[in-house]
């Protein structure tokens, strides 16, 4: 029984109930505190893919307050990035350091890498700490502006430069943490339609370092098709 519990929480003191059911049950009678899961899969393991939950991110609602939408968006981004970092903290460290695995007589140094992040469009912008909706640069991969995004001129747009964008976001985050230079923060955010939060995956080797694949790690399941035979990942990983 306990082996199941690793993937299924059910803790129910009399005054406070927490249900964590990673495989798709809806407990509509307990809606006070909603979270959604983050799952991972190790692709080096042959056979049937097994997705394991590593974190539950709280759903951040827009409150009744001044500048509610902007502040809600900022909170959502912050909460998501912080939870992701909490879960991936060691993984990110080992992506730089590597760990040793013994294969018979051979010792191999293995470096963890995040190759693909499956999500929806709004989630993509949140993972990369970019602004969502009708922002100036709606594309996560290139710097095309919204004015020409559907025109032939869009072909001339350049790909986003990971280091430059990350630098802007890091500076913006530093200013945000210290509640300073609001005008500078806005300028930095508007340059690439990125929020003032550095994306956690920017710290991972291979994404924020050579070969800089941060903006290429996002993949979608096409139109949310749930049939296995028609599910194709757009990402190349």
């Amino acid at each position, binding site marked *: *029984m306990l082996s199941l*519990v690793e993937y299924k*929480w059910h*803790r129910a*003191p009399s005054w406070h*109930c927490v*249900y*964590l*059911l990673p495989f*798709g049950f*809806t407990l509509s009678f*307990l*809606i*006070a*505190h909603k*979270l*959604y*899961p*983050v*799952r*991972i*899969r*190790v*692709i*080096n*393991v*042959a056979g049937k*893919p097994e997705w394991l939950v590593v*974190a539950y*991110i*709280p759903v951040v609602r827009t409150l009744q307050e001044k500048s509610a939408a902007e*502040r809600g968006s*900022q909170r959502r981004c*912050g909460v*998501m990035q912080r939870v992701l970092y*909490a*879960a*991936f903290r*060691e*993984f990110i*460290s080992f992506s730089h350091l*590597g760990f040793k695995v013994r294969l018979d007589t051979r010792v*191999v*140094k*293995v*470096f*963890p*890498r995040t*190759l*693909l*992040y499956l999500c*929806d469009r709004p989630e993509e912008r949140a*993972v990369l700490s970019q602004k969502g909706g009708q922002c100036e640069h709606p594309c996560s991969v290139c710097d095309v502006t919204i004015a020409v995004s559907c025109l032939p001129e869009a072909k001339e747009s350049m790909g986003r430069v990971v280091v430059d964008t990350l630098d802007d976001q890091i500076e913006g985050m530093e200013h945000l943490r210290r509640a300073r230079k609001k005008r500078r923060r806005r300028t930095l955010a508007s340059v690439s339609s990125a929020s003032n939060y550095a994306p956690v995956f920017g710290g991972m080797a291979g994404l924020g370092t050579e070969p800089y*694949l941060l903006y290429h*790690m996002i993949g979608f399941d096409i139109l949310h098709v*749930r*049939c296995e035979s028609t*599910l194709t990942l757009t990402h*190349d*990983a």
Partner: protein
Amino acid sequence: MSAAPRSEAQLRCVICRRTVRDFAGLRRHQNAAHGRTAGLGFAIAGHKRIRTSDDSSSGLGGPPPAGGLPFDSSGARPGAAGDASATNDATVRGVDNDPPPAPDEAASDAGSGFSAGSGAVSADLKALYEMARTQVDPDVVSGEDGAAAAVSTTREYSYGAASTHIRALYEHMQDVQRATPLAEPRRKKPHTGKFNSYRLRALQNFVLKVGGAGLSLSEQERLFDFLDVWDRTRPNMPADDGHNKTLRDSFDNANEFRSALADDLDMAVNQAGWKKVDLVEDGEKYEAYFRSVMGVVRNIVSNTKATAMNWWSGGPAPAPLDNRRETPMDGEVYKVMEQAVMDEHGPNSAILGIHVYSDSSQLSWSGGKSLTIRGHSWCGTGS
């Protein structure tokens, strides 16, 4: 106007000469005793009328059957026993016509007694219809609406009372007669009554009521497997110190049982590395749960057989970029990452790739495959 027939002082069955009190009783008697109806219980000028036509079809306009049996389709309406609107063109069933099949259950005789059941209802309805209806002249109908005759050739009746007419309309649909028992037995000889002891009835009660809707079939199978272990009857099951203990030996009451479950679950969650943290963003506090991805990956690597782990895209060595796309390790991203690592750290290095999935909009289950479970998992707290 009442749907019940007007009672007669004395009527006599033309078949067996038995006397009855009223016309309904006469019809019930004839249907039950002779399986057919004949005569009106008294003489009509020494002649019996011949019915005008016979329509054996069971169209909507035809006479209503009763008791699930074909109903006498004549347009009989006895002038003496019917309502005041009786007309001379009313037709009477002839004694030499084919009798209708008898009802399943015996009806009460002569309307003098009380009988229950569908047979009595059928006989009552049958007698009532025969007595109270009048066939509508098709010419009259077509005169009112020229299309009516062309559309329907079935008989149409009028009834002495609206309530009778309504009953006739719905009887004609035969919904009750066509109804079948709700449950279809799974096998030819169902073994009912097997839960025949206090313990088994308690078990049955639990299975049917737990969770509000009882257990599903698969859950019932799991419960049976569990009870097989609990009864110590599963073949080859290990026997330990608690083999012969009862539940009460370990837990005195339900509260202790519940607490022990919660304790074990809490312990298991902590052993799995789950942690919670309060995050304060812009003055708002949020509670999040996580565990180390690296810990999960380590567990996977250490618990997976060496033969099931692939460390390089080409098996024992990296593969070149090509168009092969059979596994995630054939993708360009994996090969590019692999090449970058091996360029820096030499041939005794590899990468361990992970895919991450999250979906805050809770619209789809990606997971790389189809699942039957709809929706998305989440956590809720409440009091």
